[in-house]
């Protein structure tokens, strides 16, 4: 009896700490280090710029860029919203399609045999190079950019989900088999939760891929957005605008990444690996 009550006490103790851990600490711990880094970086930059180590026409002083933010706020906002819309839309479309495809592939041997090699090979195609083609097909503007982002974020999620959906221990499948579970139940109860750590690993990678590919696609196929702003401002030597656009793009990327990480923490129990058991 005493051995049992010892185990009980340990269990409740651990369960309490597990319950309080995820919510409070995470956002601060997530935001503080990068914030400190940015402050240090700006300090270094001000010094380099003031002493003339880096010429002004390459890197303007921080205050010039700050001034740009204040003066050109509406323009930056307009382009930032356009890029954010494209990146987030592409991020969602690409990942949702990837997840659905991975589920279909892992449940149909024929589909997998037919398309999986193709899916792997197509990963080697430089998607950005298709932007001009997509512009011809979809017209100039946001649709080709969203298409490029969708295709670019598709592969990490697809490949990881293929692995994740097959990652559950065979013991769980046997257990569900003896319970006469349907395939759908098996997916919902075991395979889907088991794949979530894999999915989030992919989402963290593709959060930055989404913005990078959106910016590059905008160079080629758009008439608004931060990528477009970068090209235009560099052509007119409006360096503060160029730098402001880059900073905004970086902040937006971090924002999307933060949302993914916070979501992962909220789903903490589901996204923990089975090795925990």
């Amino acid at each position, binding site marked *: 009896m005493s*051995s*049992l009550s010892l*185990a*009980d006490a340990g*269990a*409740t103790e*651990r*369960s309490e700490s*597990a319950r309080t851990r995820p919510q409070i600490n995470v956002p601060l711990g997530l935001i503080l280090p990068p914030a400190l880094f940015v402050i240090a970086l700006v300090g270094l930059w001000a010094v380099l710029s003031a002493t003339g180590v880096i010429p002004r026409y390459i890197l303007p002083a921080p205050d010039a860029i700050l001034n740009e933010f204040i003066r050109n706020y509406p323009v930056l906002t307009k382009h930032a919203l356009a890029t954010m819309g494209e990146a987030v839309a592409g991020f969602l479309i690409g990942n949702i399609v990837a997840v659905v495809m991975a589920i279909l592939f892992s449940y149909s041997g024929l589909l997998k045999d037919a398309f999986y090699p193709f899916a792997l090979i197509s990963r080697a195609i430089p998607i950005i190079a298709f932007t001009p083609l997509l512009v011809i097909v979809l017209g100039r503007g946001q649709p080709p950019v969203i298409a490029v982002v969708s295709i670019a974020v598709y592969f990490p999620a697809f490949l990881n989900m293929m692995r994740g959906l097959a990652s559950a*221990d065979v*013991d*769980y499948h*046997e*257990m*569900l*088999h*003896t*319970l*006469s*579970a349907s395939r759908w*139940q098996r997916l919902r*109860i*075991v395979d889907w*939760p088991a794949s979530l750590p894999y999915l989030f690993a992919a989402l963290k990678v593709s959060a930055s891929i989404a913005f990078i590919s959106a910016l590059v696609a905008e160079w080629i196929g758009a008439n608004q957005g931060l990528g477009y702003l970068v090209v235009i401002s560099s052509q007119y030597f409006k360096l503060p605008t160029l730098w402001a656009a880059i900073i905004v793009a970086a902040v937006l990327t971090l924002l999307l990444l933060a949302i993914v990480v916070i979501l992962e923490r909220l789903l903490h*129990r*589901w996204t*923990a690996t*089975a090795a*925990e*058991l």
Partner: protein
Amino acid sequence: MGSSSRSGGLTIRDVGMVYRRRDQVTTALTGCTLDIPEGGWASLIGASGCGKSTLLRILADIVKPTSGVALVGGVSPAEARSARTFALVSQQSTMLPWRKILANVELGLEVAGVDKAARRRSAEEAIELVGLKGFEQAFPSELSGGMRQRAAIARALTLKPRFLLMDEPFGALDEITREKLNFELLRILKETSATLLLVTHSISEAIILSDTVAVMSPRPGRISHRVEIGFGHDRTNAMRDDPAFGAYEAELRHALHGPASSARPASHPIPAFAIH
């Protein structure tokens, strides 16, 4: 029950299992026959690789035998599985790590399509029966191995199975916890009047939990001996001190390892001890 009780137990008749891999043929099981009447308790005991788990997995409809017949309550394992008349408890508790204990215990009824309120009630009953009350909201990783195994038994019990198939359910536990759970399982078996087939490699566990112990030998896997345990179903911890318990232990040990005294000269005591 009446006429159905005649074939209502677990039946294995001349079951064989042959694996073919290219030109290599491995006979895992041959000519296994065993009858466990409804409400009876039986164990399969043997060294690793003797096919005892395979025999259990045939009854649980996880694998199909290459020859012979297996019946669960008079019907094929597949039919029994669809009708949900048996429950399997394996060595790994197979608690889903992302589900709390209550949700894990509810799983069997959830899969069976039982509505939320009813399955919650059954799960809470089962959790209480296995002595896990208060841990409904804990995650499996927060429990000890023994407690997780109790939860796995609770999950099996929610299905009100007529047959409990257990594959070394306490194999990963220490001796003290194992024995404690052995006697708790006895209590549960009496309360539920389920038929038990237990795979184990522990002689004492087999005696505590069985009317019949089938001893298996490897290469090819077969049932080599059968020992009837005459303790009835009213068993307490005191049975361990019964001289008959020691006699059964010796009988099973001989069945497993061969009769030590006849195989070796009695005047040579060391090997006889070494065999134990």
